[in-house]
């Protein structure tokens, strides 16, 4: 028993175990999603989290310890964002023909994303700091945290709301667009990129490469626009 305890005390101090756990959980989640034909509800992020959470709970591992291993994966979000340049470049011909829809849809989606969150939070009588934390939820995490902090929200709450928004968008986009009979992959991808940032973009890449390219553009443009419009909307709507 001491050997097992020693082994555990060694493993729990290295990044190896949580890095490996994360990769294995994702491979299992992705394998299931792939076998089922990527149905919207089998979201790989959500499934992976549901696999990892009980392991952390059973081993009484706190998030800080987990993140010491998982940070290497988290770090790659930066270069992956840069990598979105390639699908953008590959699709430049069709993008050039849809500049007007892109810009107007960006404004509409970005304003509705923040504005509806603010108005709904007001309607439900949520505390002001919760409302302010909610406003930037549709944009990519680093931008959302910065905005939240600047307008007086709680960045820790915003971080959770941003991820939940991404998962909700990734799960709802396919049934919603099918219901509306939208067949234009550019429009479908763009919508999920505006409303649900990188997690929505990840879903779009699973479904269709053109949708992925447009989701990537939407996410990048919305990172810029949200930081400009949220402070204005907050002033108007509160």
């Amino acid at each position, binding site marked *: 028993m001491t050997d097992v305890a020693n082994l555990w005390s060694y493993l729990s101090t290295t990044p190896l175990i949580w890095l490996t756990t*994360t990769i294995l959980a994702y491979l299992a989640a992705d394998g299931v999603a792939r076998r089922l034909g990527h149905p919207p509800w089998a979201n790989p992020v959500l499934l992976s989290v549901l696999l990892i959470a009980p392991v952390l709970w059973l081993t009484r591992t706190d998030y800080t310890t987990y*993140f010491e291993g998982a940070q290497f994966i*988290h770090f790659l979000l930066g270069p992956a*964002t*840069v990598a979105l340049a390639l699908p953008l470049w590959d699709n430049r011909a069709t993008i050039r023909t849809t500049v007007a829809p892109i810009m107007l849809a960006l404004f509409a989606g970005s304003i509705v994303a923040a504005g509806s969150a603010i108005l709904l939070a007001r309607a439900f009588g949520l505390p002001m700091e*919760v409302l302010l934390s909610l406003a930037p939820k*549709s944009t990519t995490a680093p931008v959302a945290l910065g905005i939240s902090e600047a307008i007086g929200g709680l960045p820790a709450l915003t971080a959770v709301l941003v991820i939940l928004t991404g998962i909700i*968008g990734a799960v709802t986009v396919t049934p919603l667009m099918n219901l509306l009979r939208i067949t234009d992959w550019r429009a479908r991808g763009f919508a999920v990129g505006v409303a649900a940032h990188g997690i929505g973009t990840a879903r779009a890449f699973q479904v269709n490469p053109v949708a992925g390219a447009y989701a990537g553009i939407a996410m990048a443009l919305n990172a810029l626009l949200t930081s400009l419009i949220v402070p204005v909307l907050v002033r108007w709507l509160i």
Partner: protein
Amino acid sequence: MLHTLGLLLGCQLLGEITVRGFGIVMPGPVLGLALLVLFLRALPTLGDQVRPTITVMLAHLSFLFVPAGVGVIGNFEVLLDDGLTLLFILTLSTVFSMLATVGTFVGVRHLIERRAA
């Protein structure tokens, strides 16, 4: 693969330096994305060189969000007593935003195509 990773990190680094140096409200990686587009434009063969690595990376973009997703479970208590209300608001607001985006996109495209026809 290493060349591609070096290029991506280099673009991100240049982006971060520029953003911080000039106090621009934009994440470094987003500016890095714009820089990489400029490089792809300047070097016509670059796209094919970086495509294999980037294709794998973007096919598994979900994987990179798993640590942050686990963070949601780890920080669930920040949702306080408003958890269900917040989930409801997030769902409605996300659907509204997608409706507004897709409606505008398709509407504007139709208008332009009709005028062109």
